[in-house]
């Protein structure tokens, strides 16, 4: 598991470790290597936990499946659905949130990008982000919003990064927008576009 470098930015999301909570129901959304966080959560939980729980599992794209899906299926969740990617899991997550009661604990785990997508779906449904349990597993690749054209580029791993929409070279900041669910990217060479700093892989 990679560790997150906590920056001075207050807005930079902080992730914890999933812990079984006292609640009438449980909604768990996991992506990729988050499968292992779910297995650890279930191992810590009292018997009968999974019979009150729904699991939405997005398999990739960064982690080859490695049998995770089958291992999760065997845990006996009351409802278990898979999807190819975090983005593909969102419609089902939105549906689950529409029916969700406040007596449901929500657990989210996966890559930094997946967590951005899941947390935003939950806050859009009216849940306060402080009430969501999150655990980071897998890639640190970021969703980045270009502050100039507002386009969002997925799976950004380099510093600087090229905006997939307007092509500007962006400095990826730790400044995070919960409303948009993305880190902010600001043009790094506005004064002299011919000055092109080398890209380094920063968010593996």
């Amino acid at each position, binding site marked *: 598991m990679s560790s997150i470098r906590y920056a001075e930015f207050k807005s930079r999301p902080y992730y914890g470790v999933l812990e079984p*909570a*006292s*609640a*009438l*129901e449980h909604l768990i959304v996991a992506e990729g290597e988050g499968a292992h966080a779910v297995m650890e959560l279930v191992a810590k939980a009292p018997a009968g936990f999974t019979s009150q729980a729904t699991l939405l599992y997005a398999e990739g794209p960064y982690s080859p499946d490695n049998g995770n899906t089958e291992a999760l299926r065997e845990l006996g969740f009351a409802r278990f659905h898979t999807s190819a990617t975090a983005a593909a899991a969102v419609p089902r997550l939105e549906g689950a*949130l*529409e029916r*969700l*009661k*406040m*007596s*449901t*604990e929500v657990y989210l785990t996966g890559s930094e990008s997946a967590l951005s997508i899941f947390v935003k779906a939950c806050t859009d*449904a*009216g*849940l*306060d982000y*402080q*009430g*969501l349990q999150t655990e980071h597993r897998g890639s640190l690749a970021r969703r980045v919003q270009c502050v100039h054209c507002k386009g969002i580029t997925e799976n950004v791993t380099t510093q600087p990064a090229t905006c997939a929409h307007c092509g500007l070279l962006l400095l990826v900041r730790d400044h995070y927008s919960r409303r948009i669910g993305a880190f902010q990217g600001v043009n790094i060479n506005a004064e002299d576009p011919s000055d092109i700093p080398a890209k380094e892989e920063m968010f593996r």
Partner: protein
Amino acid sequence: MSTPAAIDVVVSEVVEVNSLIKRFHFKRPDGAPLPAFSGGAHIIIEMQDGDQTRRVPYSLMSSPLDTSDYQCSIRRDDEGRGGSLYMHREVVPGMQMTISPPANLFALDLRANKHLMIAGGIGITPFLAQSSQLERTGGQYELHYGVRSRELGAYIDELQDRLQHRLHMYYDEHNEAMDFDTLLSTQPAGTHLYVCGPAPMIEKVLDTARAAGWPESHVHFEHFSKAPPGEAFSAELSESGISVEVAREQTLLEAMEAAGVDAPYLCRGGACGQCETDVVECDGEIMHEDFWLEDDERASGKKIMPCVSRFRGKRLVIAR
């Protein structure tokens, strides 16, 4: 100045709501509008009771859309320190008084998809203001209101007219109790819960919500602890270099103010945290009455909230 600037007002009306509750209306002497406030806000009423100055928080119950006056409903508490008794016995229309500007420690979270309000007895007052606010701004809400009896329940008719199907009444005299388990397990995502009323009711709602898995950030409560009377005690103020005597029906904060110490405060009900003070020395027991300190802070004996908490023992020195 560490305390909020005061507003001079005139008592424009006093209405007997029922045998226990009176409603007080305050206006500016020149009739100009009072400061804007939001539903759930309170003011602090200053009372000159003989040689004692009392400052007591009360919720604003009037509509936030109308600042031509402020209205507070006050239940007479015969066991309290005397603030409500003073209001009931001494305050008459035409009297000049001083109040604080409004402050809100019980505001609606406007990100909510739905507001679920639970009131017990006189705890209805902030919800009167909040429901008026939501009528104008829109927003889904429902109010569950428990009272001892039809006779002692305040504003039931007005609420029925305004809220209609959004109001759910529960009468003790008919053995009707709120079913918190069902209520709190059936609320849709994005609901925010608000509770105001007697301490045991608040505790029960908070416990039920916690056990059912409600996130803390969706649960709001207001219980101005009614700084209870207690035995007299003395306290040394290390920064001011003086000692104060706290009488039976006085609070430590009031005793400091009477001695000319400008101590910070906002709610005077143990809720806001403004008056938190370090304890330098404590040979005895601090009786914590606030809702602010964490359990470990209370146990440490290093903090006190002088607006509500008291002391029993040999020596108390606080950093003020």
